[in-house]
């Protein structure tokens, strides 16, 4: 089965639409949503509604720190994120907020694990920045492949049976076979706010039979998404950074 994995959509409707369209065109059969549906972007209602529909049709979804912040005032965030989340809170209705509040922190699916930040302690929202961080996550789970997001930059880590680590920046559209003999941590780029210098929306496809992962990029109407952020009075940097991909 071909899975399409999306992370960090962040209320960016244009980016999410482009990714869904491209993933469907490539034959995706099941959708995995790694959290942070809201925050930063100006279309949280549409994004949450779409996520709810996909989940109703069998998609997997887990909770991100921005999703949690909608329902809690104790999450500490930087100033712009805080402004965006307060604005978001006012936009979502009770059903949408409940959907976010009830999302699980992690989902296990046969030998795969889906989590927003990393597996060792998901509630701490730690970023995977290095092989050391990745090793910590991989040691905490027996899963063959862990999928996560949170850092908004794609990366692929592996750990051998002798606990040796490798790190790799995946090349767009080049399938990589996640060999059985080792464990893998697939860090997804962001759909709605890429920060790796490429403004196009990031997601990945995973073939559960061949165990191949393909990192993909979907170009989308960045100007429209940025325009929505500006017209809703959100911090202008949240609009500007989209075209720079950082």
């Amino acid at each position, binding site marked *: 089965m071909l899975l399409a994995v999306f992370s960090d959509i962040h209320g960016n409707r244009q980016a999410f639409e482009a990714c869904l369209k491209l993933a469907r065109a490539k034959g995706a059969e099941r959708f995995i949503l790694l959290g942070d549906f809201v925050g930063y972007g100006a279309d949280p209602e549409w994004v949450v509604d779409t996520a709810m529909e996909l989940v109703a049709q069998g998609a997997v979804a887990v909770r991100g720190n921005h999703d949690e912040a909608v329902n809690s005032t104790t999450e500490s965030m930087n100033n712009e994120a805080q402004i965006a989340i307060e604005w978001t809170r006012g936009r979502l209705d009770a059903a949408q907020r409940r959907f976010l509040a009830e999302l699980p922190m992690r989902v296990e699916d046969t030998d795969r694990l889906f989590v927003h930040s990393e597996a060792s302690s998901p509630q701490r929202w730690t970023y995977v920045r290095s092989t050391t961080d990745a090793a910590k996550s991989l040691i905490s789970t027996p899963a063959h492949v862990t999928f996560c997001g949170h850092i908004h930059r794609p990366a692929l880590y592996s750990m051998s049976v002798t606990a040796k680590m490798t*790190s*790799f920046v995946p090349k767009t559209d*080049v399938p990589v*076979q996640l*060999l*059985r*003999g080792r464990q893998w941590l697939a860090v997804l780029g962001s759909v709605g706010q890429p920060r790796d210098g490429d403004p196009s929306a990031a997601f990945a496809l995973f073939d559960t039979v061949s165990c191949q992962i393909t990192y993909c990029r979907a170009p989308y109407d960045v100007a429209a998404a940025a325009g929505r952020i500006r017209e809703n009075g959100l911090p202008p940097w949240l609009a500007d950074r989209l075209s720079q991909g950082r």
Partner: protein
Amino acid sequence: MPKPLVKSGAEIDGYTIGECVHAGGMATLWTVTHPGIDVPLLMKIPRVSEGEDPAAIVSFEMEMMILPRLAGPHVPSCFGTGDFAHQAYVVIERIVGTTLYKRLPDLPLPYEEARQLVAGIATALADLHRQNVIHHDIKPSSIMFRGSGEAVLIDYGLSHHNHLPDLLQEEFRLPYGTAPYMAPERLLGVRDDPRSDLFSLGVLLYFFTTGERPFGEGETLRAMRRRLWRDPHPPRKLRADYPPWLQEVVLRCLEIEPVWRYPTASQLAFDLAHPDQVRLTTRSERMKRDPLSVAWRRRFNQGVMQPRAKADVAAQIASSPILAVALDTEEGAPELNEALRVTTERILATLPSARLACVNVLKLNRIAIDKTLDEQGSNKHVDRLVALRHWATPLKLDESRLTAHVLEAVDPAAALLEFAEMNSVDHLIIGARQGSFRRTLLGSVSSKVASEAACTVTVVRPPRMATAKPGAGVVWG
């Protein structure tokens, strides 16, 4: 880890196991057959039992990732892989014959034989590098030749694929590979520079032409590290009749700094295909090693070695292409030759490591016997070479980047296409002959070349015609 299931007569995923043909330190090789496949097959199975080197597993994982992605005549075709979860294996085509290792008792080889052999290997390496793979274990036992003549590179257990995770990057504290052939930068942990393979091939060429390994057989790290500062004895010191052009090529491959070696395997293959055009530098004259004072300075200044940016195999190859410009020095209109020069200059300006081959076709008569001398009695071939070099003078190219070639052929387009093919030309620049009587009669050379060449072709027209006719100067990709 499950026990290996392999023995003669057993069946794995539809492959019937035959006999064990090789048992190496890392893996065993078995002949296998499969009902749907009618080429001879080999199954390679890693040694994974308790107490075996963990390196065997990792390098086998690398082969499992890389082999299925390779294509072309210079690699063994891959038919299938099996996972470590069940029984790890790769099935590849069985190439008839032996590796170059069997030639070691014949060393040193005659220069001409070694030249052809290594030119073939360089062509194979260029093809591999174009597929984003650095071999990292070029040595006689990793090289075979097909019956049709192409070199085949085998054993990808230490290789690096620029588009795949490098599983060996943190696996070993010490550089892993074959000591006598290992490039100096490998000792510093660099695994992403394709020029490391050119160094190894230089070691092979040195060994095959002198009978001696340039850096000995030392396996200790201390012995290996010497090559970071100590240059090898020039081959001419070992064999008095060693051709200067060959020493130039060998010592350029063996430069300590990758940047002083050939920029690409294609460029090395080009020089080996045209030994008479190799530009000789002081390398070719050297009779002894650098004085100790120079070597010691290198040794104790290693800290100041420039930090290197992460290399991208594809980008490096793309910045060092082989360009060819087809010129009609005899009948070509001066304005067309000028337009060709302007275009060539522009392309070269963006590619500091590119080399340029200026090509002219001396058209032979289909029936009559051709004379080498013209009516005035001067040699046509030599005249044209002089004219080509004269055309290229304003480009002010370093001589090591420029060659001139006169091809003799009945069909100029076919000759140009063959030249481009044989020399792995990346970009061919050719003038369009507009409105000529001969073109109407014989068809256009440039249009045939543009439509049939495997490389990029730029068709150039003089500026006057470009304004008269829209769409002129089109780049054919």
